[in-house]
């Protein structure tokens, strides 16, 4: 753990990404304690108030302005991040774990297991993911847990396909044969020999997927199938603020910026993690 932070301190981009992620997480956790107006309280007298930077610390002010119903945007972004980040992180972890394991299983066993898994992937890829997500959400309802599962469902196949290809190449490497030669069991070969060697692509896909999932979550909210109003979500803020872009630019800009910064910070952190897990690059630095 200590070496982890030491290595992190040496990488400017990694540290920046890490700190930014920390800020978002802190914002999400601390949102109720910052003395902000409630994210759901609307005020007809304070509709579409422009951002005022000077009012950052005066109570009752709106540093990022208010939306068309007079709700405080900063507050909505922070409260929105609680659901958005939780759902996105949950979906990435669930989809990543399931997809990676299935990819390793398919590549390792080949044969029938592989054919069945890959046909499922093909079939699912043939369906538009959005449509699939819509159908499932419409069927089971739009709770946070359901959203995590639905978004993971659209995500696992990306891992499974790429990891399977990697494993197919890896299993021909002689250190895998050597593991067979000492009598190592299937589980040991998968966890000790295959998994560490596919971590690079897994992390790359995961960072890309996180960005995609945040946007997909936004799209689902936009279509009214995400987190239900009046709970704030970044996607819904984007969707609702869209029409006011010419008159009140801040309504759509700040949630957009929040998505952008989240995706950026996760990408930076992901790049760094990928290098960190590669022993070759770790010692080179």
């Amino acid at each position, binding site marked *: 753990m200590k070496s982890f932070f030491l290595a992190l301190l040496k990488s400017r981009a990694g540290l920046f990404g890490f700190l930014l992620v920390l800020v978002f997480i802190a914002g999400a956790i601390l949102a109720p304690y910052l003395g902000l107006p409630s994210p759901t309280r609307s005020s007809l007298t304070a509709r579409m108030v422009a951002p005022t930077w000077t009012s950052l610390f005066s109570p009752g002010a709106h540093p990022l302005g208010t939306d068309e119903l007079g709700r405080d945007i900063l507050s909505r972004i922070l409260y929105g991040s609680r659901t958005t980040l939780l759902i996105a992180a949950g979906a990435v972890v669930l989809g990543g774990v399931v997809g990676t394991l299935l990819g390793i299983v398919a590549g390792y066993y080949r044969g029938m297991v592989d054919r069945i898994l890959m046909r499922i992937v093909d079939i699912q890829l043939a369906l538009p993911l959005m449509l699939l997500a819509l159908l499932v959400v419409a069927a089971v309802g739009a709770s946070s847990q359901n959203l995590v599962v639905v978004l993971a469902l659209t995500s696992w196949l990306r891992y499974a396909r790429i990891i399977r290809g990697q494993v197919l190449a890896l299993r021909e490497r*002689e250190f895998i044969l050597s593991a067979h030669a*000492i009598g190592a069991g299937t589980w040991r070969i998968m966890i000790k020999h295959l998994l560490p060697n596919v971590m690079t692509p897994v992390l790359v896909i995961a960072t890309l997927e996180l960005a995609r999932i945040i946007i997909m979550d936004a799209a689902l909210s936009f279509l009214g199938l995400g987190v239900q109003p009046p709970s704030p979500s970044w996607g819904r803020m984007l969707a609702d603020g869209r029409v006011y872009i010419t008159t009140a630019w801040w309504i759509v800009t700040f949630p957009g910026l929040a998505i952008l910064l989240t995706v950026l910070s996760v990408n930076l952190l992901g790049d760094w993690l990928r290098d960190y897990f590669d022993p070759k690059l770790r010692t080179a630095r």
Partner: protein
Amino acid sequence: MTMEKTPQKPLVIADRLCKTYGGGRGFLAGSTPALKAVDNVSFEIYPGETLGLVGESGSGKSTTGRVLLQLEEPTSGDIIFKGQNLTGLSKPLLKPFRRDMQIIFQDPYSSLNPRMTVGEFVGEPLVVHGQGGNRSERNDRVAALFRRVGLDPSFMTRYPHEFSGGQRQRVCIARGIALDPALIVADEPITALDVSIQAQIVNLFQDLQDELGLTYLFIAHDLSMIRYLCHRVAVMLRGRIVEIGPCEAIFENPQHPYTQALLSAIPVPDPKIERERRPIAFDVNANPTPADAVLKPVGERHFVLG
């Protein structure tokens, strides 16, 4: 160690081994022509002996080694190790035998797990077979193995990419001898190494044989090293053994035209000899081996396919 065994009893017997690839019909894949990688190969290796296996790429020598260790299942034939027939044994039944036979590969770059420290890699066989006790006892054993193959035990926590080819091969050898095996299949273990390192590894193989009584199947295409290392040599061509015999008989008195061609093709590091050397040509396609050919004795323990 070798004294306990009677020299007449082979450690391992390969009996009419065949390995065929393809030929089946796959789902949505159509049929592929069958390739006989190993074709009716029989030999035995005695305790403490080094049997050299030579042949060109595609001759089936590597496949023979892998089939012998049950890393690939033979299509037909038997492998008898210490009197026990290994063919058809299930994975759990085979596991105790895995302790007794190990393999060293050609490419020390792809035979180490890049994401595992070399210490963990060398100690893995001990973990798998529940030997070596707790973590610190196991560490001591791994350190001893490192010293045994000429590596500094302080390297144990490092990753493979920090090592040169020769050092990596030493790591592989340390892992290979961790469980005190009887038989080691060495599949071209020096081919990928730098010339100035090859002699070090060859000497290490010999020292280990002297001290631990190891038995080797040494697969190579460098015949001069084979001559230096082996007691007996088998020459493979297109999946079959065309000649087998004591090293001296093969090198001094080769009988099969292919063996003769192979021997005449080795470049000699001496310009005077080299200018006079005229390689004998051998066209495999013009001289196909009859399918019903069998190994016939031509001298003391010396057999030729014909």
